[in-house]
Protein backbone atom coordinates (compact mmCIF):
# COMPACT_ATOMS: atom_id res chain seq x y z
CA UNK A 1 0.00 0.00 0.00
CA UNK A 2 1.30 3.47 -0.90
CA UNK A 3 2.20 5.68 1.99
CA UNK A 4 0.32 8.96 2.50
CA UNK A 5 3.23 10.37 4.40
CA UNK A 6 4.73 13.44 2.71
CA UNK A 7 8.42 13.65 2.10
CA UNK A 8 10.24 16.42 3.93
CA UNK A 9 10.65 18.33 0.63
CA UNK A 10 6.90 18.22 -0.08
CA UNK A 11 6.12 19.34 3.44
CA UNK A 12 8.57 22.21 3.17
CA UNK A 13 7.13 23.39 -0.17
CA UNK A 14 3.56 23.20 1.12
CA UNK A 15 4.50 25.24 4.16
CA UNK A 16 5.70 28.16 2.05
CA UNK A 17 3.34 30.99 1.11
CA UNK A 18 2.92 31.90 -2.57
CA UNK A 19 5.31 34.84 -2.26
CA UNK A 20 7.86 32.69 -0.47
CA UNK A 21 7.67 30.07 -3.20
CA UNK A 22 8.25 32.76 -5.84
CA UNK A 23 11.27 34.05 -3.92
CA UNK A 24 12.54 30.50 -3.59
CA UNK A 25 12.34 29.97 -7.35
CA UNK A 26 13.99 33.32 -8.01
CA UNK A 27 16.82 32.62 -5.63
CA UNK A 28 17.41 29.34 -7.47
CA UNK A 29 17.93 31.42 -10.62
CA UNK A 30 15.51 29.43 -12.73
CA UNK A 31 13.34 32.26 -14.01
CA UNK A 32 13.70 35.96 -14.79
CA UNK A 33 10.10 37.02 -14.13
CA UNK A 34 9.28 39.62 -11.52
CA UNK A 35 6.98 38.63 -8.64
CA UNK A 36 4.29 40.90 -10.11
CA UNK A 37 4.50 39.11 -13.47
CA UNK A 38 4.33 35.71 -11.85
CA UNK A 39 1.31 36.74 -9.76
CA UNK A 40 -0.41 37.95 -12.95
CA UNK A 41 0.35 34.70 -14.76
CA UNK A 42 -0.69 32.50 -11.87
CA UNK A 43 -4.01 34.34 -11.71
CA UNK A 44 -4.69 33.84 -15.44
CA UNK A 45 -5.62 30.65 -17.26
CA UNK A 46 -2.17 30.05 -18.71
CA UNK A 47 0.55 32.35 -19.95
CA UNK A 48 -0.73 35.01 -22.36
CA UNK A 49 1.30 36.28 -25.31
CA UNK A 50 0.44 39.33 -27.43
CA UNK A 51 -1.48 38.47 -30.61
CA UNK A 52 1.23 40.22 -32.59
CA UNK A 53 4.66 38.87 -31.80
CA UNK A 54 7.15 41.18 -30.14
CA UNK A 55 10.36 39.58 -31.40
CA UNK A 56 13.29 39.21 -29.08
CA UNK A 57 16.87 38.82 -30.24
CA UNK A 58 17.68 36.99 -27.02
CA UNK A 59 18.06 33.28 -27.74
CA UNK A 60 16.86 32.46 -24.22
CA UNK A 61 13.58 34.34 -24.46
CA UNK A 62 10.29 32.72 -25.46
CA UNK A 63 8.64 35.52 -27.43
CA UNK A 64 5.68 33.97 -29.23
CA UNK A 65 2.89 31.43 -28.91
CA UNK A 66 -0.06 31.06 -31.25
CA UNK A 67 -2.56 28.36 -32.18
CA UNK A 68 -4.61 28.51 -35.34
CA UNK A 69 -5.80 26.99 -38.60
CA UNK A 70 -4.70 27.47 -42.19
CA UNK A 71 -5.98 26.52 -45.63
CA UNK A 72 -3.43 24.48 -47.60
CA UNK A 73 -3.33 24.09 -51.38
CA UNK A 74 -1.93 21.27 -53.51
CA UNK A 75 -0.58 21.50 -57.03
CA UNK A 76 2.42 22.45 -59.16
CA UNK A 77 2.81 25.96 -57.76
CA UNK A 78 0.63 27.53 -60.44
CA UNK A 79 -2.19 25.11 -61.13
CA UNK A 80 -3.92 23.68 -58.09
CA UNK A 81 -5.72 20.40 -57.65
CA UNK A 82 -9.44 20.55 -56.98
CA UNK A 83 -9.76 19.84 -53.27
CA UNK A 84 -12.92 18.61 -51.60
CA UNK A 85 -11.19 18.90 -48.24
CA UNK A 86 -8.25 21.09 -47.27
CA UNK A 87 -7.65 21.66 -43.61
CA UNK A 88 -4.57 22.64 -41.67
CA UNK A 89 -3.79 23.49 -38.08
CA UNK A 90 -0.66 24.93 -36.51
CA UNK A 91 0.93 25.86 -33.22
CA UNK A 92 3.78 28.35 -33.22
CA UNK A 93 6.10 28.25 -30.24
CA UNK A 94 8.89 30.79 -30.43
CA UNK A 95 10.34 30.35 -33.91
CA UNK A 96 9.04 26.79 -34.41
CA UNK A 97 5.87 26.08 -36.37
CA UNK A 98 4.32 22.66 -35.82
CA UNK A 99 1.67 21.92 -38.46
CA UNK A 100 -0.75 19.21 -39.53
CA UNK A 101 -2.74 19.03 -42.75
CA UNK A 102 -5.30 16.84 -44.48
CA UNK A 103 -6.03 17.26 -48.18
CA UNK A 104 -8.41 15.27 -50.38
CA UNK A 105 -8.52 15.92 -54.11
CA UNK A 106 -11.12 15.03 -56.70
CA UNK A 107 -9.15 16.21 -59.73
CA UNK A 108 -5.57 17.21 -60.47
CA UNK A 109 -6.89 19.83 -62.87
CA UNK A 110 -4.32 21.16 -65.30
CA UNK A 111 -1.33 20.60 -62.97
CA UNK A 112 1.86 20.14 -64.97
CA UNK A 113 5.10 18.23 -64.51
CA UNK A 114 6.56 20.71 -62.01
CA UNK A 115 7.21 19.42 -58.49
CA UNK A 116 4.14 18.62 -56.43
CA UNK A 117 3.84 20.92 -53.44
CA UNK A 118 1.47 21.78 -50.66
CA UNK A 119 1.25 25.57 -50.53
CA UNK A 120 -0.01 28.26 -48.17
CA UNK A 121 1.69 27.14 -44.98
CA UNK A 122 0.84 29.59 -42.18
CA UNK A 123 4.25 31.32 -41.98
CA UNK A 124 7.32 31.72 -44.19
CA UNK A 125 10.17 29.41 -43.21
CA UNK A 126 13.58 30.92 -42.51
CA UNK A 127 16.94 30.23 -44.10
CA UNK A 128 19.48 28.78 -41.70
CA UNK A 129 22.48 27.68 -43.74
CA UNK A 130 21.39 24.98 -46.14
CA UNK A 131 18.84 23.46 -43.80
CA UNK A 132 15.46 22.44 -45.13
CA UNK A 133 12.74 21.23 -42.82
CA UNK A 134 11.42 17.71 -42.53
CA UNK A 135 7.80 16.73 -42.82
CA UNK A 136 6.25 13.29 -42.66
CA UNK A 137 3.28 11.55 -44.18
CA UNK A 138 0.77 9.69 -42.05
CA UNK A 139 -1.11 8.20 -44.97
CA UNK A 140 -1.87 8.85 -48.61
CA UNK A 141 -3.80 7.58 -51.62
CA UNK A 142 -3.14 8.44 -55.23
CA UNK A 143 0.51 9.56 -55.15
CA UNK A 144 2.88 8.08 -57.71
CA UNK A 145 5.22 5.73 -55.84
CA UNK A 146 6.03 3.86 -59.11
CA UNK A 147 5.62 0.09 -59.31
CA UNK A 148 8.52 -0.40 -56.87
CA UNK A 149 6.70 1.54 -54.15
CA UNK A 150 9.34 4.22 -53.68
CA UNK A 151 9.03 6.30 -50.55
CA UNK A 152 7.45 9.77 -50.85
CA UNK A 153 9.40 12.40 -48.91
CA UNK A 154 7.92 15.83 -48.10
CA UNK A 155 10.02 18.77 -46.94
CA UNK A 156 9.59 22.50 -46.43
CA UNK A 157 12.11 24.64 -48.28
CA UNK A 158 13.88 27.72 -46.97
CA UNK A 159 12.25 31.14 -47.27
CA UNK A 160 9.19 29.24 -48.39
CA UNK A 161 5.52 28.74 -47.61
CA UNK A 162 5.37 25.40 -49.42
CA UNK A 163 6.08 21.75 -48.63
CA UNK A 164 7.67 19.98 -51.62
CA UNK A 165 7.37 16.28 -52.45
CA UNK A 166 10.23 14.06 -53.59
CA UNK A 167 10.38 10.37 -54.37
CA UNK A 168 13.25 8.25 -53.05
CA UNK A 169 15.31 6.11 -55.41
CA UNK A 170 17.48 3.12 -54.66
CA UNK A 171 21.12 4.26 -54.33
CA UNK A 172 20.40 7.35 -56.38
CA UNK A 173 19.34 10.95 -55.99
CA UNK A 174 15.72 11.56 -55.14
CA UNK A 175 13.34 12.59 -57.90
CA UNK A 176 10.97 15.54 -57.82
CA UNK A 177 7.46 14.12 -57.67
CA UNK A 178 5.67 15.54 -60.70
CA UNK A 179 2.36 17.18 -59.89
CA UNK A 180 0.74 15.57 -62.94
CA UNK A 181 1.76 12.05 -61.88
CA UNK A 182 -0.91 11.69 -59.19
CA UNK A 183 -4.13 9.74 -59.64
CA UNK A 184 -7.27 11.64 -60.59
CA UNK A 185 -8.40 11.48 -56.99
CA UNK A 186 -6.65 10.86 -53.72
CA UNK A 187 -5.75 12.20 -50.34
CA UNK A 188 -2.82 12.88 -48.07
CA UNK A 189 -2.36 13.45 -44.37
CA UNK A 190 0.93 14.96 -43.25
CA UNK A 191 2.66 16.94 -40.50
CA UNK A 192 5.87 18.83 -40.09
CA UNK A 193 7.94 21.33 -38.16
CA UNK A 194 9.90 24.28 -39.46
CA UNK A 195 11.63 27.38 -38.23
CA UNK A 196 10.56 30.94 -38.98
Amino acid at each position, binding site marked *: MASNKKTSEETDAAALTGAEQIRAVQSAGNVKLTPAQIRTYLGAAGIPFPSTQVPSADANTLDDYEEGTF*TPTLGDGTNNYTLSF*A*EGSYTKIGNQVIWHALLIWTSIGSAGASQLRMGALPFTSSAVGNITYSAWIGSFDGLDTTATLNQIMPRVGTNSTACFFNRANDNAAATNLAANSSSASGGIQLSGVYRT
Partner: protein
Amino acid sequence: MLARTIIDRIEIEPQTGNVGVGMKKQVLADDGVTVLSEQFHRTMLAPGTDAADQMSRVNVHLGMMGFPAVKTEDRAVLDTALGAIETLRSAKLAEALEAEAAKA
Protein backbone atom coordinates in the same frame (compact mmCIF):
# COMPACT_ATOMS: atom_id res chain seq x y z
CA MET B 1 -24.65 34.52 -30.79
CA LEU B 2 -23.05 35.76 -33.98
CA ALA B 3 -19.90 34.72 -35.76
CA ARG B 4 -17.64 36.66 -38.09
CA THR B 5 -14.20 36.43 -39.66
CA ILE B 6 -12.09 39.55 -39.76
CA ILE B 7 -8.66 40.26 -41.20
CA ASP B 8 -6.49 41.15 -38.24
CA ARG B 9 -3.13 41.59 -39.92
CA ILE B 10 -1.62 41.96 -43.38
CA GLU B 11 2.11 41.22 -43.19
CA ILE B 12 4.44 42.13 -46.04
CA GLU B 13 7.76 40.29 -46.18
CA PRO B 14 10.14 42.28 -48.39
CA GLN B 15 12.80 39.54 -48.47
CA THR B 16 10.51 36.89 -49.94
CA GLY B 17 7.70 38.96 -51.40
CA ASN B 18 5.24 36.84 -49.43
CA VAL B 19 2.16 38.45 -47.94
CA GLY B 20 0.79 36.94 -44.75
CA VAL B 21 -2.88 37.36 -43.95
CA GLY B 22 -3.80 36.88 -40.29
CA MET B 23 -7.50 36.42 -39.62
CA LYS B 24 -9.59 36.04 -36.48
CA LYS B 25 -12.61 33.77 -36.28
CA GLN B 26 -14.77 35.49 -33.69
CA VAL B 27 -17.90 34.52 -31.81
CA LEU B 28 -19.83 37.61 -30.72
CA ALA B 29 -22.52 38.22 -28.14
CA ASP B 30 -26.00 39.20 -29.28
CA ASP B 31 -25.02 42.89 -29.11
CA GLY B 32 -22.79 42.19 -32.13
CA VAL B 33 -19.87 43.93 -30.46
CA THR B 34 -18.68 41.92 -27.46
CA VAL B 35 -16.20 39.24 -28.53
CA LEU B 36 -16.87 36.04 -26.60
CA SER B 37 -14.09 34.02 -28.18
CA GLU B 38 -11.68 34.20 -31.08
CA GLN B 39 -9.30 31.87 -32.89
CA PHE B 40 -6.64 32.55 -35.49
CA HIS B 41 -6.68 31.53 -39.13
CA ARG B 42 -3.80 32.30 -41.49
CA THR B 43 -2.89 32.11 -45.12
CA MET B 44 0.25 33.11 -47.02
CA LEU B 45 0.17 34.59 -50.50
CA ALA B 46 3.45 33.94 -52.30
CA PRO B 47 4.28 36.13 -55.32
CA GLY B 48 2.28 34.94 -58.30
CA THR B 49 -0.43 33.35 -56.18
CA ASP B 50 -3.98 33.88 -57.41
CA ALA B 51 -5.14 35.75 -54.31
CA ALA B 52 -8.82 35.64 -55.26
CA ASP B 53 -8.66 31.87 -55.70
CA GLN B 54 -6.79 31.40 -52.42
CA MET B 55 -9.22 33.59 -50.48
CA SER B 56 -12.12 31.63 -52.01
CA ARG B 57 -10.51 28.45 -50.67
CA VAL B 58 -10.12 30.11 -47.29
CA ASN B 59 -13.80 31.02 -47.28
CA VAL B 60 -14.79 27.42 -48.08
CA HIS B 61 -12.58 26.21 -45.24
CA LEU B 62 -14.06 28.80 -42.87
CA GLY B 63 -17.54 27.56 -43.80
CA MET B 64 -16.52 23.99 -42.93
CA MET B 65 -15.43 25.25 -39.53
CA GLY B 66 -18.74 27.01 -38.96
CA PHE B 67 -17.59 30.56 -39.64
CA PRO B 68 -18.73 32.99 -42.33
CA ALA B 69 -16.56 34.27 -45.17
CA VAL B 70 -14.05 37.01 -44.46
CA LYS B 71 -15.78 40.33 -43.79
CA THR B 72 -16.36 42.16 -47.09
CA GLU B 73 -14.84 45.45 -45.90
CA ASP B 74 -11.69 43.69 -44.70
CA ARG B 75 -11.43 41.80 -47.96
CA ALA B 76 -11.59 45.11 -49.85
CA VAL B 77 -8.70 46.43 -47.73
CA LEU B 78 -6.70 43.30 -48.51
CA ASP B 79 -7.36 43.63 -52.25
CA THR B 80 -6.27 47.27 -52.16
CA ALA B 81 -3.10 46.36 -50.27
CA LEU B 82 -2.31 43.54 -52.69
CA GLY B 83 -2.81 45.90 -55.62
CA ALA B 84 -0.39 48.40 -54.12
CA ILE B 85 2.17 45.67 -53.40
CA GLU B 86 1.92 44.42 -56.98
CA THR B 87 2.50 47.96 -58.28
CA LEU B 88 5.59 48.27 -56.07
CA ARG B 89 6.81 44.86 -57.21
CA SER B 90 6.45 45.86 -60.87
CA ALA B 91 8.24 49.16 -60.25
CA LYS B 92 11.11 47.40 -58.47
CA LEU B 93 11.36 44.84 -61.24
CA ALA B 94 11.44 47.56 -63.92
CA GLU B 95 14.10 49.41 -61.89
CA ALA B 96 16.23 46.25 -61.68
CA LEU B 97 15.86 45.58 -65.40
CA GLU B 98 16.86 49.15 -66.23
CA ALA B 99 19.93 48.84 -64.00
CA GLU B 100 20.90 45.59 -65.74
CA ALA B 101 20.42 47.20 -69.14
CA ALA B 102 22.59 50.17 -68.12
CA LYS B 103 25.42 47.80 -67.12
CA ALA B 104 25.31 45.97 -70.45
